[in-house]
């Protein structure tokens, strides 16, 4: 749909003919006296940080936003993205009503339809596709920013019977860390941008001395929460090390900045491990007693040695007795060797410690310096700062999630912290603090109903056998889905329901996805406003902005309500949409969908809900409240800070186990640096799969290893520069490129080149330049700066909402995902493809992309407009 057509269309239609207004909401508005103001305490969702916010509402219209000081993480601050919520909410080009495409794909010809018609059409198509091709021919997706939660999509797929849902993040963003830290110690990963590392939000008393920001820039990803928190820590004297090829604010303020060559992080991490082992900087007592490094491993099977007939009693080497059982948690009568190799019953066995050493032995400081293009002395200084000043911790960011070496980076980073005993002690990032118990999974309360997916369907998950680590999120692999659409193998994919920002801006190798889109029978897109992807949809659905939605939010020891401040047009809460669609499938005889409305049958998976009040009410009922009562009271502390911050959970006596220490949530109850469970995962899918799947082609490695990027500056002569990405503080994933306040500050992506490279390729600051990879090319504005590693080029993701009506649909002009790589190699465990650290070339472009807006004046067309009378969708 082009914008003019869209606007013309809106002007021409008879608004509100089809639906009764929402009496309750209108009453609320009407009860406001002239110029009556009220303040609503809610929570932002411009990114995923959920910062507490206060909306001022004047005569039913949101007129101002600010941070809520009751939020213990954002402490009353709100960033540029959050403050822009008003312009996002009242944007003239919101998706306002369900629309049906009436011209060819990409033609931008639309017709307004009712929610009834939209839901009926989609449900008919779903049932027809299932009948003709099997449920697996339907796939759904989420992601791309601004999504209220993700599990509704997985839930719908599981009950519908398709194993195929994905998001463009997942294996490329965050899942590598979730998977690894879960498996290695059973607690929360240390991602600041994902609102973890909660220990750090208490600068007044946290004893942390050194914080390593590895491939993360909280100043840019989450300024109001993580960015402010790191500023607080620096101000109290906490030392910081920043590892990033780009000179970010957090690099500029660091005590040591290591501008690593993009994609070589694991080599650097391995050098850290080696140095810590070689110089015995690790916490010897913790490593011996609370990690599995002294355990003996059979070199042939790669499995740990167990006591005869026992799966949960492990063997160690006693200096005088030889191989002996170690009763949990420890036996002081034994004299255990940490490092060694032995022949036991004719089998070569080594301790986990020895195997760890062997895995990193080649990564001397000098070797890492050579690979990562750093100097050895700076690397040593950084390791010393970290290891000599504990408690310390590595906050691992998204950078390492975006290459096929993703899981190995997380394994290596966790290993370093575990060697230093930076876990569950005051000051450590890896913690298992208490939760409110209100939700089974904090902040993502929709039950994914994984057990509802029939096992024969589970076996068909695209990428599910090869990349079994995706099982922790029950997700499919986007690369495999792309390949399947294009080839029709192993089975046809026909129908796509996507809830998210711009898929063509968020998935690797955008042009390949466009090609794939044309092979599909039916596409549904649901979002707050049209994106490039919308142009290809058959049905377009209007989603609520965060100021229109309700959600239960837990932030440290505080519970917060995101509550609908207003409601515009015919937008629907996405968490409710899937419920509405489920109902239509049930009405058409889908048995599992019919049962999904039966409370008794669904049990913990919950029956589908008819309102957000009902859904959220289920959770807050646990603390004796209705959703309405909760909204009136929130935010509030559910536990005093000191009771909430539970340290040393592993030492707590466990009544279930003879009051022995509880240990870690791993098979050995120890921190598993030698990650045997990775091998089991690859062979069977355990512990994430309810059935044994066929083994992956090769065993997953129980220890980290470095993989040189497949496109590497060491060997590539045609494409000499290495691309790297990273955030700016104005946008979240694909969102907010249509917000005037933000676009006037950052109208187009800057392409950062160091002065030497700019000169070499004939570019000057302010030039438009092409950046080209083996997949495609796109444009950016050259910025010549010392703040980027020589040989690397940095550019932010971008798409142009102003060009939706052009042939490009706004996703080709300045989108780095025209360059990224969706093909092999993939990370073995989870299938990560290549979003960073691939090779490009740059050259001058004669002109700017056609239609790009750069001047403040342009963005006036996107300023808030008067809204329609508030309506509630009654489509039940």
């Amino acid at each position: 749909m082009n914008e003019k057509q869209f606007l013309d269309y809106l002007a021409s239609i008879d608004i509100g003919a089809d639906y009764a207004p929402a009496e309750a909401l209108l009453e609320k508005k009407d009860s406001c006296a002239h110029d009556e103001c009220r303040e609503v305490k809610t929570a932002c969702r411009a990114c995923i940080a959920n910062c507490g916010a206060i909306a001022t509402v004047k005569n039913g219209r949101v007129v101002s936003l600010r941070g809520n000081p009751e939020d213990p993480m954002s402490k009353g601050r709100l960033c540029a993205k959050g403050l822009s919520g008003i312009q996002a909410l009242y944007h003239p080009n919101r998706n306002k009503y369900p629309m049906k495409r009436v011209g060819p794909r990409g033609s931008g010809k639309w017709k307004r339809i009712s929610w009834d018609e939209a839901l009926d059409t989609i449900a008919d198509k779903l049932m027809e596709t299932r009948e003709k091709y099997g449920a697996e021919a339907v796939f759904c997706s989420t992601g791309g920013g601004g999504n209220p939660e993700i599990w509704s999509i997985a839930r719908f797929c599981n009950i519908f019977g398709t194993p195929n849902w994905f998001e463009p993040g997942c294996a490329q963003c965050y899942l590598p860390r979730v998977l690894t830290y879960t498996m290695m110690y059973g607690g929360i990963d240390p991602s600041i941008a994902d609102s973890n590392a909660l220990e750090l939000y208490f600068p007044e008393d946290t004893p942390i001395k050194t914080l390593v920001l590895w491939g993360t820039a909280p100043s840019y990803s989450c300024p109001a929460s993580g960015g402010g928190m790191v500023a607080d820590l620096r101000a109290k004297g906490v030392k910081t090390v920043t590892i990033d090829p780009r000179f970010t604010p957090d690099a500029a303020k660091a005590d040591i900045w290591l501008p690593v060559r993009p994609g070589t992080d694991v080599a650097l991490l391995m050098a850290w491990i080696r140095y810590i082992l070689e110089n015995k900087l690790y916490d010897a007592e913790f490593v011996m007693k609370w990690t599995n490094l002294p355990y003996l491993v059979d070199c042939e099977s790669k499995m740990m040695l167990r006591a005869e007939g026992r799966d949960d009693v492990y063997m160690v080497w006693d200096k005088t007795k030889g191989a002996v059982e170690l009763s949990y948690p420890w036996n002081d009568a034994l004299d255990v060797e940490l490092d060694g190799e032995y022949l036991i019953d004719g089998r070569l066995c080594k301790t986990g410690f020895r195997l760890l050493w062997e895995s990193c032995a080649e990564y001397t400081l000098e070797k890492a310096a050579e690979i990562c293009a750093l100097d050895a002395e700076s690397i040593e200084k950084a390791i010393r700062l970290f290891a000599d000043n504990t408690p310390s911790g590595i906050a691992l960011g998204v950078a390492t999630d975006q290459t096929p070496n993703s899981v190995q980076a997380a394994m290596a980073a966790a290993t370093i912290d575990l060697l230093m005993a930076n876990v569950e002690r005051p000051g450590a990032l890896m913690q298992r603090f208490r939760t409110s118990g209100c939700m089974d999974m904090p902040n993502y309360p929709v039950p994914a109903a994984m057990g509802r997916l029939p096992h024969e369907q589970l076996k068909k998950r695209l990428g599910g056998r090869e990349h079994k680590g995706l099982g922790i999120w029950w997700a499919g692999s986007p690369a495999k889905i792309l390949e399947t659409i294009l080839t029709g193998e192993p089975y046809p994919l026909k129908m796509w329901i996507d809830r998210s920002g711009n898929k063509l801006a968020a998935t690797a190798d955008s042009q390949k996805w466009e090609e794939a889109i044309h092979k599909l029978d039916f596409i549904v897109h649901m979002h707050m406003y049209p994106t490039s992807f919308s142009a290809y949809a058959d049905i377009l659905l209007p989603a609520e902005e965060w100021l229109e939605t309700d959600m239960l939010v837990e932030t440290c020891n505080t519970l917060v309500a995101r509550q609908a401040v207003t409601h515009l047009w015919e937008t629907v809460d996405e968490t409710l949409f899937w419920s509405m669609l489920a109902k239509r499938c049930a009405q058409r005889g889908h048995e599992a969908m019919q049962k999904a409305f039966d409370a008794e049958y669904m049990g913990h998976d919950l029956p589908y809900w008819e309102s957000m009040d009902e859904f959220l009410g289920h959770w807050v009922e646990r603390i004796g409240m209705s959703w309405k009562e909760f909204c009136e009271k929130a935010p509030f502390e559910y536990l005093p800070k000191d009771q909430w911050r539970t340290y040393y959970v592993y030492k707590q006596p466990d009544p279930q186990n003879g009051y022995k220490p509880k240990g870690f949530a791993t098979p050995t109850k120890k921190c598993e640096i030698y990650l045997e469970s990775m091998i089991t995962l690859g062979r069977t899918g355990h512990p994430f799969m309810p059935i044994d799947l066929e083994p992956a082609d090769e065993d997953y490695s129980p220890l980290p290893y470095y993989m040189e990027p497949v496109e590497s500056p060491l060997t590539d002569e045609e494409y000499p520069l290495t691309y790297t990405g990273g955030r700016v503080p104005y946008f979240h994933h694909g969102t907010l490129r249509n917000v005037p306040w933000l676009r006037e500050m950052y109208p187009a992506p800057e392409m950062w080149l160091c002065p030497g490279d700019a000169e070499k390729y004939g570019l000057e600051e302010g030039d438009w330049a092409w950046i080209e990879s083996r997949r495609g090319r796109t444009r950016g504005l050259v910025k010549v700066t010392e703040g980027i590693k020589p040989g690397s080029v940095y550019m932010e993701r971008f798409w142009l909402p102003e060009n939706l009506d052009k042939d490009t649909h706004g996703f080709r002009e300045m989108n780095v995902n025209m360059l990224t790589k969706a093909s092999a190699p993939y990370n073995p465990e989870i299938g990560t493809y290549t979003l960073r650290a691939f090779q490009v070339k740059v050259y001058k472009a004669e002109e700017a992309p056609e239609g790009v807006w750069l001047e403040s004046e342009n963005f006036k067309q996107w300023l808030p407009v008067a809204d329609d009378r508030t309506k509630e969708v009654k489509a039940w």
Partner: protein
Amino acid sequence: MVKLAFVIDCDRCIGCKGCQVACKMENELPLGHDRMKVCTVGPHGQFPKLQMYFLPAMCQMCNCPACADVCPTGACRKDETTGVTKIDKNLCVGCGKCEKACPYGCVKINREAAKADKCEGCLAALENGEMPACVRNCSGSAIKFGDINDNQSEVSLLLASVAPSMVYGLRDNGSSPAVKYILRRDEWKDILPSECIEHVAFKRGGKI
């Protein structure tokens, strides 16, 4: 005598520019017009030995404001009770002399209103017991505002907590700017806000 001014801890400013949006929202400013901007100073030096800091720049709350000196109608003048220079929109004729006179680029003609416009410390918010929008929303808690003549105020205590050698002001061309910047580790650069281009697109269009 009360002298309200900003004191900014540059070591805490993380360059997120949330303050710019907060200011626009609070003061209902049109697109293309700002009362403040966060300037990126640097990176200076040679890779990898670099430094960079951020400089939130708004009205420098001058003791001898050049903007008031040149105002032909008396619209622009220093308020003696707060020490803040304000523009009386009823008197302003939009001649633009103040815009030219301000050495810091911090007074500008709001082209939609055709009046001069500048940061006045969100005095209305102050009357409601609230800090200016940029201060309230500052993600790094870098921007502070208060009476620098009261030695017990937050801003005075902050200034007193650092060595005088770490306290800076923008280049003084005779207007005696009162806004203070704290920078502890990095080397202060004598740079004016107008010299900082925040996005390469602005360089092309000549926009500051």
